[in-house]
């Protein structure tokens, strides 16, 4: 299994630093940003196995951000973290394609498990895409 590449997005810098360190000690490659705009730039430039996104950040509605992220990168595996969870919002987020919706303070082992699941999902999506491309190429050449 390759190292999980994670983008951590939260406006609480102390939270970012500590969570990043803990995930790194679990063998993950972690990038942190404390502004929603920077998260959009990062996902355009880099490929991540999972994005851990704070649901409520200054100037950002979590649902709108999730929609925008999924529009830019439909395969993106987003795990929402929030200090403000409601069942209604979590259902909405899951319908929009969030992998999971975890409440702060989150359990690191549960989060690690979710990240690993996200990476597996991502690999399956990539594999399916590759398979489809190979089939197209073979079809083109009459094989």
């Amino acid at each position, binding site marked *: 299994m390759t190292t999980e590449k994670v983008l951590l997005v939260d406006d609480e810098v102390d939270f970012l630093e*500590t969570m990043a360190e803990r995930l790194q*000690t679990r063998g993950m490659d972690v990038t942190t940003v404390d502004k929603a705009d920077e998260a959009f730039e990062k996902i355009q430039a880099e490929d991540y196995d999972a994005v851990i996104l704070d649901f409520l*950040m200054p100037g*950002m509605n979590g649902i709108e951000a999730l929609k925008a992220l999924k529009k830019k990168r439909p395969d993106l595996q987003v795990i929402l973290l929030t200090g403000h969870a409601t069942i209604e919002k979590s259902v909405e987020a899951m319908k929009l394609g969030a992998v999971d919706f975890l409440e702060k*303070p989150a359990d690191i082992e549960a989060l690690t498990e979710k990240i690993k699941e996200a990476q597996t999902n991502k690999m399956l999506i990539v594999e399916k895409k590759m398979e489809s491309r190979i089939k197209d190429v073979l079809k083109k050449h009459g094989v």
Partner: protein
Amino acid sequence: MSGFRKQLNMAGQSFFGKMSASTTHELKNALAIINENAGLLNDLSQMVESGAELSAERLKSITGRIRKQVVRADDVTTKLNQFAHSMEHPIEPLELAGLVHTVLDLGRRIIEQRRMEFEIETPQAPVTVSSNRFYLMNLIWSCIEIAMDSVDSDACITIDIRATSAGGSVSFNRIDQGPEPLKIRELTDMEKALLQGMGAELIAAETTGGFVLKLPASCRYQFFK
């Protein structure tokens, strides 16, 4: 229950909900950081058991982060506790600048989420009116929301508190160079009930721009009757 009383109750419940959500969200964030730092200490202790070295500086940095969040959570809890006690007296003397500070602190998360900034022009001498603490805080919060509703995000708004011949005034104005001036949008029935209950007026400030909340020296409405 009269329509006015019903609107006033609804305004109070809505305000209580918003302030509770804002403050508990802050508490959750502080607890999340404490939780992660406690977890980090646990991770490090396991590494030490496996033979890794751990410096005193590293430990100090982690405990420093925990202490910082304990101070933050304690501050939020103190304000939430003061807020919970704001229903105790129907009418009491209230110092306006302090009250505005408290409301801004309670609603900090909502204000930050809308990317707004508020600055208070503190008067040289304290301005005091006699009113109901909870509903006056509610009315001040409504004015803050009206100000935020009239501009896009990233606006800087000043709150100027003054004594007047009739009591006190709280003025809201935009101090940054943004394109939209502050204006009063159409008031909701709850906001109208709050103004009526407090015997207050909300008027556009023609010369300086923005708007002004005018408060009587003594509120005559019988709260909690």
